[in-house]
């Protein structure tokens, strides 16, 4: 990458430290939502099934089952709208992308906990 693009990339990254999380973790993402003039924080809890890209354009996908329907949201890692990410439970997985979870439900879609 060119020096200039690298510099822009650095500037776009979030200034404060982001909680480290990995694929398979159950996280709650604190998302800033704007309703008209008011701003509030909404929690989105689910499993991280993919982390893609690098630098300021890194994205992660969080999957959850909402009212019996699978929902996936993709967040930019460095978006100012992603205020905070809390790791609720570390998962033990052997794959970098957990797209197979889309085919599974119920007991089969569980992920083992990683204990350190």
């Amino acid at each position, binding site marked *: 990458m*060119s020096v*200039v693009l690298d510099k822009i990339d650095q500037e776009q990254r979030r200034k404060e430290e982001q909680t480290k999380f990995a694929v398979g973790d159950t996280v709650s993402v604190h998302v800033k939502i704007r309703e008209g003039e008011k701003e509030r924080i909404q929690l989105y809890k689910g499993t991280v099934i993919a982390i893609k890209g690098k630098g300021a354009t890194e994205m992660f996908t969080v999957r959850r089952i909402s009212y019996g329907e699978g929902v996936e949201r993709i967040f930019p890692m460095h978006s100012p709208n992603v205020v905070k990410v809390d790791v609720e439970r570390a998962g033990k997985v052997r794959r970098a992308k957990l797209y197979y979870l889309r085919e599974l439900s119920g007991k089969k879609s569980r992920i083992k906990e990683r204990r350190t």
Partner: protein
Amino acid sequence: MNALIGKKIGMTRVFNDAGQQIPVTALEVGPCVVVQLKTAEKDGYNAVQIGFEDQPAKRQTKACAGHFKKNELPGKRILREVRLDTSGADFKVGDTFTASVFDGVSYVDVIGVTKGRGFQGVVRRHGMSGGRATHGSGMHRRPGSIGMKEWPARVLKGKAMPGQMGADRVTVQNLKVVQVRNDDNIVLVRGSVPGPSGAFVFVRKSLKKADKPS
């Protein structure tokens, strides 16, 4: 100054105030030096000739090297003219312009040469469907019929046919200026710009979406 010569650096994404990611192209514009002034009396029209990116005299033709030497200027690789409505009294040979020219400008037009794709068939070049692949079809990626019969007894002008694709001069109008970075001489414009990274582009203030003079 309404336009500068620049170089496409590459694309990336930046966050806007709402936290959305905006696709941007980084363009290195300037520093551009005024090499020659063209006047109505002498040349029949008013313009400034600007040069971009240094080039040693040994890499230039004798004619070109002499053109720079006349005004004791460093040799430049690219020369372009910017037309002026009035005589170029405000400009002097040797004046330098940088990205700050685009401070406060909302929209720009970018002129570049698209990536060359060589000699391409009709499917790739004009988006024709081609024929079917199987069942004895002998018409896979062919153009099909190119006209009628005894009348008009010729192929209509502009008929889409195979040929050279790309490497065309293309103007992209009304690209939004996202950021002007004076430290690096960089302008970030929203969206894409013709040509590969490292290609020379001509960036001018938008003709159709010009800012109202304040």
